[in-house]
């Protein structure tokens, strides 16, 4: 049944989102410069505690802050680590309007989502493993999370990956997300990680975060979008 009067309904096809002939992947578009009140929420970069890191409440009026702290979570199991870094552009300048997302397994090496069906490995009810942070005015970010356990390569392929986090980079001027990975430079398993093995040897260091401080163990992962020392980005 239609609300349009008889005889007035448009029937000619028009090229838009609903055209069957155009059906296919929705194209990416940039997050633009104004994502700060729509995407990063307070606490989004703290995957293990209750701090408010990750948001930029300085960029919009307090009365409009609808992105509240996430509900309290239970305690987590594992070693808390901090991840810090700066996003740089092709001239080596910090990028002040980027956003970082991380996705990682729990300390036992299990992903929280429903897609990881390996029931023999414990879930950590207090730990989801997804985080989001807007960078600060100097391009810097900081996450608190758990050191992830090792996970198998793929369903049906038990080769183990070294501990790592999937990292997504978004921002003004980034039409599409850039996907990379953070590995812990001092970790076991990096030498035979099947994904690192696909990266040209001279560029692997861009994915290996050095340990720069203790309590909590802190790893530095700078992200260079373009040019000298460009971070390795993946075609997933």
């Amino acid at each position, binding site marked *: 049944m239609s609300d349009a009067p008889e005889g007035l309904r448009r029937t000619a096809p028009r090229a838009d989102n609903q055209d069957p002939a155009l059906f296919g992947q929705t194209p990416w578009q940039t997050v633009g410069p104004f994502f700060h009140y729509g995407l990063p929420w307070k606490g989004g970069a703290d995957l293990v505690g209750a701090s408010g890191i990750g948001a930029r409440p300085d960029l919009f009026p307090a009365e409009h802050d609808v992105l509240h702290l996430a509900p309290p979570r239970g305690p987590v199991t594992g070693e808390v680590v901090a991840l810090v870094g700066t996003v740089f552009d092709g001239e080596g300048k910090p990028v002040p309007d980027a956003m970082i997302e991380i996705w990682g397994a729990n300390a036992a090496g299990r992903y929280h989502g429903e*897609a990881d069906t390996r029931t023999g490995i414990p879930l950590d009810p207090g730990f989801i493993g997804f985080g989001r942070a807007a960078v600060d005015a100097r391009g810097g970010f900081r996450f608190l999370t758990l050191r992830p356990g090792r996970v198998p390569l793929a369903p049906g392929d038990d080769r183990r990956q070294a501990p790592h986090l999937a990292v997504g980079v978004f921002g003004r001027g980034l039409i599409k997300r850039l996907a990379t990975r953070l590995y812990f430079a001092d970790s076991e398993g990096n030498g035979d990680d099947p994904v690192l093995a696909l990266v040209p040897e001279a560029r692997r260091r861009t994915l290996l975060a050095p340990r720069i401080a203790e309590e909590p163990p802190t790893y530095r992962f700078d992200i260079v*979008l373009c040019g000298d020392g460009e971070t390795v980005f993946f075609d997933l």
Partner: protein
Amino acid sequence: MSDATPRPRGEPGQPPSLFPPYRSTVLRSPREPLVRIPPTLTELTGPAGTWDALMGPAIADLTRHGRGPGVALGQRIVVTGRVLDEDARPVPDTVVEIWQANAAGRYIHRGDQWNAPLDPNFTGTGRVVTDGGGRYRFTTIRPGAYPWGNHRNAWRPAHIHLSLLGPAFATRLVTQLYFPDDPLIEIDPIANAVPMPYRNRLVARFDIDVTEPNHALGYVFDLVLRGRDATPWEA
């Protein structure tokens, strides 16, 4: 899980990272080739089923989400549609986040300082989770066009930013919705990063059957995520 492997890359409808007419891409897009990796368990998984614990409750009506009891100004609209995979199967349990300018084309963001009015009753952000049929629905205000500094007399077409995060890291999507018959689309560098005819995938359709009598105009906008097949790891 075994059918969650994204399809081969190289989808022709996707924009490049480097598109010089959108000037900010020039120093922010990689020059080295992307390193192709087969999806591993890491990319095949994602934080589905955790949204409330992660982000808090849904915000589906942006017209009544200001601090006071007031209602946002502007043309009230419903934006609804489905999230699908490339085989047109619905993708449930995907979080759809949106943010947008108000009816005058102004964001509440401190970085947005052009002299259009702010609306105290409009924040311009929302989020919902798709239902079992992959459906989402927002009530909001039709955003205005706004100027930006990319080139002389540059105006963004009216648009709503959308972010989708579902069961897999590999199927993440951030995009923008445009409105039909907007003359700014064809001269907008960001929209033009997407080649024709695929750019039209970003144009919502006005739908009289979604339109609510005496309340709001209706627009339909489906989102298609990267598909799934059973391509195994082949290193």
